């Protein structure tokens, strides 16, 4: 049976690359990249994960069917993330006439806590319209 046997040097090289990327991600986090810090951290993590999947998990040497299944996993993860984020991130971009931008809107990213949906005060829950 014996699948592909990678030389030890491959594993040690990949380990070294993963360590280097770990140092890189820490250095990047301590560098002020503005709004890019989050995407950069994700990009490095994706690169590290790719190395693990291809070499440690032997996907580089696997059958096409296995590669397809692995690809499908990340394809569906991509759908989950992008479709959900296109909804949440775009809320508040447009306001229909007479509408509001309330539900889940990012009114500001830097303001104090007063932004966003004010929590319902316990005493002022839905007003009872019927007078006694």
């Amino acid at each position, binding site marked *: *049976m*014996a*699948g592909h*046997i*990678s030389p*030890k040097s491959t*594993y*040690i090289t*990949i*380990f070294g690359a*993963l*360590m280097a990327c*770990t140092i890189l*991600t*820490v250095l990047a*986090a*301590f*560098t*002020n*990249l*503005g709004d890019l*810090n*989050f995407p950069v*951290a*994700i990009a*490095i*993590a994706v690169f*590290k*994960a790719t190395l*693990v*999947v291809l*070499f*440690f*998990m*032997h996907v580089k040497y*696997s*059958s096409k*069917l*296995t590669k397809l*299944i*692995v690809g*499908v*996993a*990340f394809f*569906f*993860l991509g759908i*989950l*993330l992008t479709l*959900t*984020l296109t909804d*949440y*991130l775009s809320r508040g971009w447009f306001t229909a006439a007479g509408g509001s931008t309330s539900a*889940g809107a*990012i009114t500001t*990213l*830097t303001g*104090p*806590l007063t932004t*966003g949906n004010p929590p319902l005060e316990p005493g002022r829950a839905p007003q009872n319209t019927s007078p006694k």
Partner: protein
Amino acid sequence: MPNGTAAAAHEEHHEHHHPRLQHHFEDLEQQHEAATLGMWLFLVTEVMFFGGLILAYSLYRIWYPQAWALGSEELNIYLGGFNTVVLIGSSLTMALAVRSAQTGAQRATVGWLLFTIVLGLTFLVVKFFEYKEKFELHHVPGPYFQFEGPQSPHVQIFFSLYFALTGVHALHMIIGVGLMSTITYMAYRKRFTPDWYTPVELGGLYWHFVDIVWIFLFPLLYLVDRSHHII
């Protein structure tokens, strides 16, 4: 005696193939392929499971960037970094364990597997002390949660996701150590040959997956705003 003849035929049949080959597979190659594929299908569901949690994390981070920055500052970057090195190191020892099984180096397989278990346990011990500190500082979400400042309720959401993500990850680690112990025992009993080492291979896939999850969790939880761009 139909049973007797069937058993005899069965016995005879066994002589012609590898004892580990199940009858519904053509050969060991096909059996190994099916097992790998099945393991990957399981890992697809795991990707979606952790993906959902990371999606929740991302949405709240976009809504409450300051709270995320404040909460992340409370985590110990040295312990998180140490655990990252430990876990990536355990992936290396795991990969070498699979390689040893492939080449039929039985003693090396046991050795690398034991090394992997020790590194996995090291990770869990460090995680235990991190959790302990969180309990002492009242950073555990719930009625006793305490955090100074107006961001407190949102920081509590950060810590909820911190415990959810690291908690299910640690659970996977505990299950992984259990799996590795079983596989180590099998290796110790010389159950694996270069022809058949499927449990080592599949255990390795699981272990590497758990490592990948941590590769994402470390920057997402420990390194949110270390450059103080937001706070």
